């Protein structure tokens, strides 16, 4: 595998990504809500669907904009439409990706990975959750690390995102056996053990949808 360092990631393909993710959120709305019913308040799917439906409606209008505006618009939409814990957290992810893309209209794969890492770091700061606290951070942190690692070792963006998705999925599954120390699930104490974190699940879907977007159709089978 060789890195496609010359790939230009623009708002068109990013729009595809977000659209694909929005569809997956919609498809998994009941599932995410069910996970949240077990250790939370049964609204994560509803919250995310509400926000990404609004994003999806506005996306065509964001497409021409510089990347900083594109990401910021997504972030602001999530901030004002999602509510709950996930709204400000996913909102921050995209707001920070926008800051990290200042002055650019396209990103290279490495720049994209870096923007994503900055966004995830934003989530960690906002929510002050550490890995192991049973949150979305447990899916995002290994995903971002795997993405960087693969790109640094010359993988294509497609392959690197597939590795990231695999790491995110493993992180998501690892939340099952964790006790929650942050978010609503923490109120359950030890009773939170044995349930998969809803936010980690929606976070894994975000990486997975990126992999599907950036991989040629025949590769996007995982």
């Amino acid at each position, binding site marked *: 595998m060789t890195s496609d360092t010359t790939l230009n990631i623009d708002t068109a393909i990013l729009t595809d990504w977000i659209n694909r993710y929005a569809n997956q959120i919609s498809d998994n709305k009941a599932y995410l809500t069910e996970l949240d019913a077990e250790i939370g*308040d*049964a609204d994560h799917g509803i*919250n995310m669907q509400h926000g990404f439906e609004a994003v999806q409606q506005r996306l065509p209008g964001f497409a021409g904009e510089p990347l900083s505006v594109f990401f910021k618009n997504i972030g602001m939409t999530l901030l004002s439409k999602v509510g709950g814990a996930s709204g400000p957290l996913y909102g921050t992810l995209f707001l920070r990706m926008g800051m990290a893309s200042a002055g650019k209209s396209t990103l290279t794969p490495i720049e994209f990975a870096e923007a994503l890492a900055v966004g995830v770091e934003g989530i960690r700061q906002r929510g002050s959750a550490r890995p192991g606290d049973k949150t979305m951070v447990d899916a995002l942190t290994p995903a971002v690390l795997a993405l960087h690692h693969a790109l640094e070792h010359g993988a294509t963006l497609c392959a690197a995102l597939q590795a990231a998705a695999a790491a995110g999925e493993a992180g998501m599954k690892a939340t099952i056996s964790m006790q929650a120390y942050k978010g609503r699930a923490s109120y359950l104490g030890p009773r939170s053990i044995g349930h998969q974190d809803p936010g980690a699940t929606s976070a894994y879907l975000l990486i997975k949808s990126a992999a599907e977007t950036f991989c040629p159709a025949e590769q996007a089978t995982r």
Partner: protein
Amino acid sequence: MKKLINNPSIVVEEAMLGMARAHPHLLRAYFDPNYIVRADAPRPGKVGVLSGGGSGHEPMHGGFVGAGMLDAACPGRIFTSPTPDQIEAASHAIHGGAGILFIVKNYTGDILNFDIAAELCQASGIDVATLLIHDDVAVQDSLYTAGRRGVGVTVFAEKICGAAAEAGAPLERVAAIGRKVGQQGRSMGMALTSCIVPAVGRPTFVLQEDEMEIGVGIHGEPGRERVALQTADEITDILVATIFDDLPFRRGSRVIAMVNGMGGTPLIELYIIFRRLARLCDDRNITISRNLIGNYVTSLEMAGCSITLLEADDELLHLWDAPVHTAALHW
């Protein structure tokens, strides 16, 4: 799902319209972003008191908007914290130049959204202080967790801070009084049944006929433990023992007590609980100086109750007794 609603996705907006029609002398409702402000807002020179959170806890918070209590309430979707733009818009609508106190229940979602709103308000020159309520003794407290949920003490904080603001106290003072309320108040709740989030359509958890959840919150989340159904007196003993031990409430102290229904509990049952609570306080030589018995911090149609005790000194009792004119509290 059996509910008196038209459409799960507009429950909050339709109820806000109903509130606005019912109480035009007390409040006004605004939409997109959604918030409720008292009819005579903004009050120049007065600290604004603003709260908000997910809907489904009625009368909290909209029912507490009015003279002597909240200047504004920001209702989120059912059980979902409001968004920063709601809070920011409500802040602008009530800003009278003396700053605004945000009364925030300790949930990650509420904290994050209010934090962002506070940043936005401060950026536009509005002084903001945040009062965090975390009174639920069912939750283990620790530096490394999200801490305790905010529940019943929120009502006390809103009443008392509202009275202080109405009396002309400056922002720092209103916030300090609120912190005192937070330090001296504790709550614990239980559920006989789950509630049904309208957009979900099924109960969040399922309890058998002979089971109850002890230590539930107000979002249909499961509680601290599931145990066999017990009598009203035994349940009261469990709730109160945990509360007494936590602060601890001292012998000879005076308290404001609330026996709160979760939305589906008949009032007659709440009085049975209060009867036992009064006896337990007698045994400890604790005087219940004021009380509230009814549905104040609900969880949709959940059957169950919570008990809140606030250790009250002369200052707090004085502010508690100050006039209040809202849809749900009125004296």
